[in-house]
Every structure is written in structure tokens, then in C-alpha cells.
């Protein structure tokens, strides 16, 4: 049987809705909230890492060459990286 995403009935709830599984929030993919997604243009990117620093979701990572990419499983499409990217290497497009 597949593991339940959340308790089915009230009797299955841990007291106080405590969660004893580490990092369980990772299984909740917030990417589904997104309306727009960021497209990072590596020809304009100067590898400053401002997008990485400002991403409130912490879903932007640096690749081996020092460029950045958003993990679309978690990116909520807030556009903060687009707003902060001063070389304008990021644009938001409909998802």
C-alpha cells in the first residue's frame, strides 16, 4: 500500500499534529501553486547569485559551471528572482 500523504481519519492524527518523520515537508511539492515559471538565461547571467540569495523557497541551486537553476518541483513562481536579477537574465513565462 502506498504511504498516506496525510492521516485519513481524526483517530490517526498524532497528538498536537506532531510529525515524527524527518523532513517530511519535502514530499509536499509546492510547484503546483505556480502560475508562472522563471527562465534563466545563461548568456546574460553574471553568476552573482542574487537569485539564489533572494529565493524565499530556497529552490534555486548552483550548477557545476556556476550558473543557477530553479527546482520546479518547489518553485511557487513568486517572481522575486526575476525582480532582483539586475542583469535581467531571468524572465517569467506562463507555466
Amino acid at each position, binding site marked *: 500500500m502506498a504511504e498516506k500523504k*496525510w492521516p485519513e*481519519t481524526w483517530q490517526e492524527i498524532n*497528538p*498536537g*499534529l506532531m510529525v515524527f518523520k524527518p523532513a*517530511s515537508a519535502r514530499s509536499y511539492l509546492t510547484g503546483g501553486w505556480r502560475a508562472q515559471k522563471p527562465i534563466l538565461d545563461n548568456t546574460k547571467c553574471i553568476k552573482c547569485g542574487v537569485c539564489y540569495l533572494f529565493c524565499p523557497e530556497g529552490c534555486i541551486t548552483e550548477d557545476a559551471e556556476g550558473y543557477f537553476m530553479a527546482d520546479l518541483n518547489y518553485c511557487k513562481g513568486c517572481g522575486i528572482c526575476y525582480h532582483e536579477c539586475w542583469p535581467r537574465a531571468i524572465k517569467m513565462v506562463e507555466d
Partner: protein
Amino acid sequence: MSKRIGMEIALAAAEVAALCRPDVIAAYPITPNTHIPEHLAEIVAEGHLDCEYLPVESEHSALSACAGASAVGARVFTATSSQGLLYMGEIVPIIPAMRLPIVMALGNRALSGPINIWNDHSDVMAVRDMGWICLFAANGQETIDMIVQAFKIGEDHRVMLPVLVNLDGFQLTHVVESMIMPDQEEVDKFLPPRKPYATVHPDNVVSMGTLGLPEIYTEAKKAEDEALINSKKVILEVWKEWEKTFGRKYEPIESYKTKDADVIMLTVGSMYETAAIAVDQLHKEGFKAGLLNMKLFRPFPADELKAAVKGARVLIVTDRAVMCGGAQAPVCAEVKSVLYDEPVRPAIVNEIIGLGGRDVRVDDFIKMFKKAATADKVKPERAYEIYGVRSS
């Protein structure tokens, strides 16, 4: 050995809270608070209690600190009153939802405005539905006893809920009374150290205070409601054990001269003892008056209430708070809802008394009894009356 003492009740509450060996006390110890946290600060400062005393910058911080301390497994105590409780407001419903045991002594004082701080129950009634166990003390002795009982009840793994010990502001908090104070050995024996169900610690994997999305919030609330309802079993157990150990009996609804009573009055808190004098006087006149005092308000003792009013023709429910714009005052609203399905039930009169420290004397209670005696024949004009209000 227990010892008889004469002491201001707020100071006695602090003394007994110290005997419960709390690990953390967080409070904002100025008005509207009572002497409880002030005296606890002295006890800690003088080295009589090994405890982290946090004199925080606000009540909001006080209860937040208590939540954190309880989450790491500490035994936690706090006290507040009136606006202080409302300033804690944001955190108040979170504590029971997280199933964190904390004991709070609430010196019941009126809410502003107008600015008042004298005694009534408008503070506790504002948070009555937020998931805390609510006990009401009628005197100093009950205050002392209930504080010890509250830790044992709240920390039980079948309960794990915060407990509000209500004691009337001024009428109890600032009054010197004769009380029996248990000693350290007796309290230690009755109340062993807390064994937390789970603790926030780097070695344990646990998240507390998690998000409840629409898919789970309903079930979480149902579980919380059930936890509070089921706590009654443990409350009764603890009270039985208390009676066995200390010889003082506690029950959800205490009754006085209700056998064959024609008109019964229900009080909550310290008004009980004044009303009892009125009942004695009425009995001398041949008026069959009876009296009930609700010591347990949450979880609501519905079955005990039904049994206690059986046979009465009229029931007077006293309230110490106005439910502004509501159909009824808060205690009576619930009493009526509990008795609605009973095939035979008394006529119910709702008297709102003692607002913002207004004295309610023995002759006032006698007047209420006599006026209510015809309530089953002549329906009162309104669902509730604010007793003694001056009108032109």
C-alpha cells in the same frame, strides 16, 4: 505535613506553584497581573526554587515562551488577568492545539473598556472555546489545591492540555484567607516530575506546530475536541486521588442543600460562598433554595448538570460576563443547550451579576431567589437580566 496558614491567596498560589517545582515560569508581572508572578519572582530570586524565571516584555511573549518551554519538556507555570490574557490571545488557542501542558493561574478581572480590572469573568469567557481545561476555584483552599491538581491533569499523557485555574480577581486574589498548605514532600509524592510525550531536541525527530491544510484541519480540530472531552476522565481520577490523599473532595458541580430544592441557583467561582449564606437564610424562612457551583467549566460537565438540577422547578443561572449582542450570557447559554433535550427541565432565569467588581451581597441573592420563584408561571421579559443595573 500540611500546615494551616493565613495568607493572601495570590501569594499562597505562588507558594504552591513553587512547590510543584516548575522548570520555567514566564510572565509579565505588572498590572493587570496579580501578586502571583511577583511573589514567584521573589521565591526564585531568594534561591528557594531552581527555575528559569523569564520576566518577558509582554504577555504575548510570556505565553510564547511558555509554549516553547513546554515543547522541550519543561514543567511550565504562568499567571495573568484581564487584558493580559487577551494580549496572550494569539497564542492561547495554539497551546492546546499543540497539546502542550501549561498551568496558568488566571485572576479573573474585567476586560476594558471602560478600564476597570476589578473582578468578573469577561476575561476567561473570551477564551472559553479555545481548548483549555477550565477550573474555577471558589476560595483560597481550592485555588491552592487546583494548582497542584492542574499540573497532574494537564501533564497526563491521556490529556496533554493546558489548564486554566480561575480565581476571582480581588475577591480571591487580594484577600487573606485561612488555608491548608501542603508541604514539599506531599506535593512531590502527589506530583512526580513531568514525563513529556515528545520533546523538541536535536536527538529526537519531531516537528511541533505543523501546518494543517484544508485536507487535515477538520480532523485535527476533531482530535483536539475529543482530547478535551476525554480529559474529564483523568480530571475525575486526579480529584479522587486528591480526596484520598488530602481529604478534600472535588467534583465538577458541587451542590449545597439541593435535595428537595424548589429553586436552585448555579454560581461559578467565589460568589458560591456568599450565595450559600443566602440559601441558609432562605431555608429559615421555609423557602426551599438550593445552590450549585461549577468547578469544572471545560470540558463542560453536561451529565453532572442534568443530574444536579433534577427535580427543581426553577433554575437561576448566574453569569459574570455579558455576551454582547448574544442571545444569552455565556454560562446560561450552555446550560440551556444542555437541558434542552431533557423531557423535564426547570424554568431557567439568567442573572448577570457582579460586573467589573460590583458587589453582590447576601440580600441580593435572596432577592434573586424570591424574584425567580414565579419564573415557571410568568416568563421573564428578556432571556437575561443584568442584575441591579441602574435604569431611568
